[in-house]
C-alpha cells in the first residue's frame, strides 16, 4: 500500500549527529552563510523556548526538497501545504533531537516552537534573523551547523542552531 511504503525512513530511524561545527559570524555575514544569499531554499524556522533561547533552522536548497520528501509523501509531495507540513515536522524531529541532547547534557529545558516553513531566498531569511541580533546589540552571532545521519546516510538538510550569545556562555559555566 503506497502510504505504507511512504512510512519508511526518515520518521522511523533515530538520528545521529555526524558533524557539528561552531563558528562566530557578524550579522552582515549571516545572509551568505550557505554561499549565495539569493539561493532559494526551503527552510523551517523555530524559536527556542526555555533555558537556552535562540533559534533553529532546517535548510535545504529548494530543488532538492521534492526528492527529499518523496519517500515520505508519495504523490502528496506535490501538495505544497502537505510538503511544508512534512518538512516542518522533519525539522521538529531533528531540531528536538538536538535540543534534547543539549537539555539532558546540561540538565536544563529547551523546546522549539511549532515550525514556520518558508520557500525563499536564504539571504532574506538569514538577514531578517541577523536584524534581530543587531536589535539585541549582539555583533557576534554564534552559529552551530549540524549534519545528521540516519543509519550512516547523511541528511541533505542542514540544521543551524543560532543561540543568543548569553545562552551559550550560560551553558558553558
Amino acid at each position: 500500500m503506497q502510504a505504507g511504503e511512504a512510512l519508511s525512513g526518515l520518521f522511523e530511524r533515530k538520528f545521529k549527529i555526524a558533524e557539528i561545527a561552531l563558528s562566530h559570524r557578524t550579522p552582515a555575514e549571516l545572509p551568505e552563510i550557505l554561499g549565495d544569499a539569493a539561493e532559494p531554499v526551503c527552510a523551517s524556522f523555530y524559536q527556542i523556548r526555555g533555558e537556552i533561547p535562540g533559534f533553529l533552522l532546517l535548510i535545504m536548497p529548494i530543488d532538492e526538497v521534492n526528492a527529499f520528501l518523496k519517500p515520505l509523501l508519495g504523490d502528496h509531495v506535490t501538495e505544497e501545504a502537505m510538503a511544508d507540513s512534512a518538512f516542518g515536522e522533519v525539522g521538529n524531529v531533528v531540531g528536538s533531537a538536538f535540543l534534547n541532547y543539549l537539555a539532558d547534557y546540561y540538565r536544563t529545558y529547551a523546546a522549539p516552537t511549532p515550525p514556520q516553513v518558508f520557500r525563499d531566498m536564504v539571504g532574506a531569511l538569514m538577514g531578517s534573523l541577523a536584524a534581530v541580533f543587531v536589535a539585541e546589540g549582539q555583533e557576534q552571532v554564534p552559529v552551530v551547523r549540524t549534519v545528521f545521519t540516519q543509519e550512516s546516510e547523511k541528511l541533505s538538510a542542514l540544521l543551524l542552531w543560532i543561540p543568543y550569545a548569553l545562552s551559550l556562555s550560560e551553558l558553558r559555566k
Partner: protein
Amino acid sequence: MIRSIGLGEYAVGRDVQEDWAIYGLGSCVGLILCEPTTRVLAMAHVVLPVSPSPDPEQPARYGDTVVPFLLEEMKKLGAVTEHVMAQLAGGARMFEISGVAGDIGRRNVESVRSSLARHGVPVTAEEVGGASGRTLRWHAKTRLAVVSRFGAPDVILTPDRCRVGGSWTDGRVVKNSTEPR
C-alpha cells in the same frame, strides 16, 4: 562586475559603471537615492528603524540616520539635494518572532519614509511589505533599479526621469508608483 551591499552597508557614486545589488532583503530595506541632473546615485541596506545613538558607527544601518548621511555623501559628489528622489524595496515580515518589539520590516519602512519626508525627498517608487524576500539590483547599463522575488515577476523602480536610453526591453513588468502599496 556586481557590487554587493551587505547589511548596514552603503555605496555612493557618480556616473556609476558597475551594477549594485542587495541580495535577499527580508525585513531589511534597500534604499536608493538618485539625483538625475548630476547622475549621482546612492544605495543603502537598512537593518533597523532607530539608531541606538545619534552618531552611530554605521549610519546606513538605521532608518533614522541613513538619509541625512547619504545626502551628505551625495553632496560631496556634486549632487543637488533638491533634485534627489528615493526608491524603496524590502521591509517584509518574514518570521513571527515573539519578544522582538513589533514588526521590524514595517518599522524600517516607516522610519525611512518619515526621514525622507523630513528631508524633502520624494519617494517615487517602492516595492515593500508582504512576506517575501527581495533582491534589489541597480543595473548600470540601463540605469534601472529592479526588484526581483522568488516566484514573482520583476518590478522596475526607477522613475522615467532617472532613466537613460529608453525602457527595459525584455518584456518584464514595469511599475512606476508614487503611492505606497
